[in-house]
C-alpha cells in the first residue's frame, strides 16, 4: 500500500487536481494506492510509485506498513 500526498503551495487546500498516473487528488490531502493499482502503475510507467515520483516537488509517496513493491 502506498500513501500519495499532493501539496502545491499556490493553490487552496482541497483544490482538486488530476495527477498523471494517479487520477484525482486534492491539494494537501493523501490518497491510498492498493497493491493492485500499484502493480498497474508499474506496468504502465515502468517504475514503482516511489521511484516515479522521486524528486517531484509536489508529490510525496510513502510506503505503508505491510505494503511494499
Amino acid at each position: 500500500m502506498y500513501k500519495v500526498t499532493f501539496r502545491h503551495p499556490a493553490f487552496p487546500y482541497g483544490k482538486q487536481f488530476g495527477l498523471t498516473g494517479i487520477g484525482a487528488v486534492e491539494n494537501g490531502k493523501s490518497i491510498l494506492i492498493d497493491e493492485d493499482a500499484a502493480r498497474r502503475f508499474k506496468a504502465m510507467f515502468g517504475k514503482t510509485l516511489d521511484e516515479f515520483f522521486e524528486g517531484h516537488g509536489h508529490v510525496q509517496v510513502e510506503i505503508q506498513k505491510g505494503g511494499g513493491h
Partner: protein
Amino acid sequence: MPAGLGGAGWLAIVFETVMGTYLDPTTVGTVWVPILDESLTYNEDKYYSPQIRQSSIVMEQKQSYYHVAGDVRLEVDPTFLPYFLYCSRHTPDKAGDGTPYVYNFTPSDDAAAQIVAGSSGQKTASITIVRNDVGFGYAGCVLGGYTFAVEDGILICTMNVLGLSEETPADLGSPAWVAPNILGADSHSIYTDTAGVAPAFAGAVETNFNGFEFAVDFNAEAQNRIRADREASYISYGETVPTLTTELDFESKTEYDNFKNSAKKAVRFQSIGDGLAWGATQDAIRIDMFNMSYDEYSVNLGGMSDLVMAGVTMRALGIAAGVPYRITVKNTTDIAGAS
C-alpha cells in the same frame, strides 16, 4: 519512439530564482498550463564562413549566438494568467487573502527583463514543453508582448515569448491538472467613459463592439553580448505600444468626430467566469485602458448586403498621474507568495 500527437503534449511554467537558470518541472511551484498551441523555437544565426579558398561553396559553419522565441496561445484562465503577466514589462501588485487574490499589472519603463523579489516584482520563468514525450526546457522566459482577443466568444491570449536559452530537462516529473476554467461568451462586458486617471465606467454596457483585441508590444529583443557562451545575455525592451482593435456598428458620427478631433476616451473590458458581480467574483479579468486615442476609424459601404461598420484601432496613451492601462486578475491562486 512512435509518432506522437500534439494533444499528449504539455507545458509547465515556474518562476526562476536566478534569471536564465533553468528549473525543471519537478520544482516546487511549477504549474501545468493548458494551451492551444505553441511555437517556441531555438533561434540561431549560424555563421557560414565566406573564406575565399578556391571554392564557390562555403566549407565551414560555426555555432553563433541564439535565443528562444515563439508564441504560446491559450484560452484565458484566471488561475494561470498572472504567471505570464508577472514575466512581462509590468509592475505587479498582489492584494487580498485568497478569497480572492487580486493581481494588478500596470506598465513599467524597465529597459530589460529582470527578477525582483516579492509579489510586487517582475519575474522570469522557466518554461518546459513536452512534445511526444520529449522535454524542451526554455530558461529566462519573458513576454515580448501579448494579445487578448475574443474569438468565437472565448477570451484567447497569445503570448509572444522570448527566452535566453534552451536546456534539456533533467526530470520531467508528472503533470497535475486542475479543471478547465475558461471565459466564454456570457462572461464579457465592455464599458467606455471619459478619459481620466480613474474613470468610474458607471454607464451602460456597450453593445456595439463586434470583436475585441487588446495587444501590447514591448518591442522586446534578445541581446547577445560577448561572453564565453552563446545564449542571449538579456531581453531588452523598447517602446511599449498598447492598441485596441475592434469593429463597431456605425450608428452615429460621434465617434468619427472623436477620431478626427483626437478626443480621448477610456475603455474597460471585463470578463467574469463565475457570474458574480466584480466585487464578489473570484474568477475574473479586467483590462482598463484609461486614455485611448483613435488611431484609425474607417467607415465605408462594403456592399449591398454588408452592415455599415466602423473599423477601429485605438492606442493607449500615457496619462499624467495615472497609468495608460491596467490588467486586473482575480483568482484563488497564491502566486509569487513565496518569491
